[in-house]
């Protein structure tokens, strides 16, 4: 099991690394999906099958597909690829890498402690998750529902086309943008 955990984590890290380096949008997306699947495996190992399933269905399945739709719609083509090639010179990586490294170092420092807590993995069934969610965390469920409704309405409104005005004096403005 430990081996499985290590393999999955290496997979996740390398997929993410490839994602942030990649210049092609669709490639990056696929790398991201790979990373997400690896994390899903880790969830399974940790005894959270429900979370793993959700990760695949919603994250890798719905959200990434949204990304795909948008990338296709906006026609992120090879000209963009060339532009990315110009923008991503190696020396652009230095600053952000240093910053992230510092942050990582601090996080690691916080984690490093003489005693290691080992986890006794027991499987937590979806039933338990559901029970907890609708009893103790019921308010947060409602809040999440609000958030999703807000997201729907916002996305709908933002995605509207502007109406073409047929008013005599306003015709030249308000064309579809």
């Amino acid at each position, binding site marked *: *099991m*430990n081996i499985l*955990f290590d393999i999955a984590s290496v997979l*996740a*890290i390398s997929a*993410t690394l490839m*994602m*942030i380096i990649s210049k092609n*949008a669709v490639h*990056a*997306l696929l790398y991201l999906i790979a*990373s*997400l699947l690896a*994390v899903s495996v*880790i969830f399974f190992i*940790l005894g*959270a099958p429900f*979370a793993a399933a*959700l*990760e695949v269905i*919603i*994250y890798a399945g719905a*959200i990434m597909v*949204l*990304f795909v739709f948008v990338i296709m719609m*906006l026609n992120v083509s090879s000209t*963009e690829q060339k*532009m990315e090639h110009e*923008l991503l010179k190696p020396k652009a990586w230095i600053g952000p890498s240093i910053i*992230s*490294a510092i*942050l990582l170092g601090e*996080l*690691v420092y916080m*984690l*490093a*402690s003489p005693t290691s*807590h080992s*986890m*006794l*993995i*027991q499987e*937590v069934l979806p039933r*338990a*998750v559901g029970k*907890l*969610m609708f009893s103790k*965390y019921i308010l*947060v469920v409602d809040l*999440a529902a609000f*958030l*999703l409704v*807000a*997201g*729907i309405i*916002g*996305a709908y409104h*933002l*995605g509207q086309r502007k109406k073409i005005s047929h008013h005599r004096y306003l015709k030249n403005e308000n064309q579809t*943008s």
Partner: protein
Amino acid sequence: MNIPMEQGILLAAILFCLGLTGLLVRRNVIFMLMSVEVMLNAAGLAFIVGGAAQGNADGQVMFIFILAMTAAEVSVGLALIIRMFKEFKSLDIDKASTMRG
């Protein structure tokens, strides 16, 4: 089947920092959003690890909420990206810097 908790959190931290690097480096706004996804995923991983360490379902519940939030954020974010593209005709985030001063 003992996996030290520190390893899990460490993985989450590494993924988070990778995502952060991607956010800071890339100029294409879609890549930035993808990096944000990575960061959120890493946070969710940290929650699951914590929940597994305690043996109850709280970590998974929090993960579900993070997922819901991410979904809403992505939908609105992508809609905004579409509008931005239509407005500035480019996906370079530095073009959308008129709110300065």
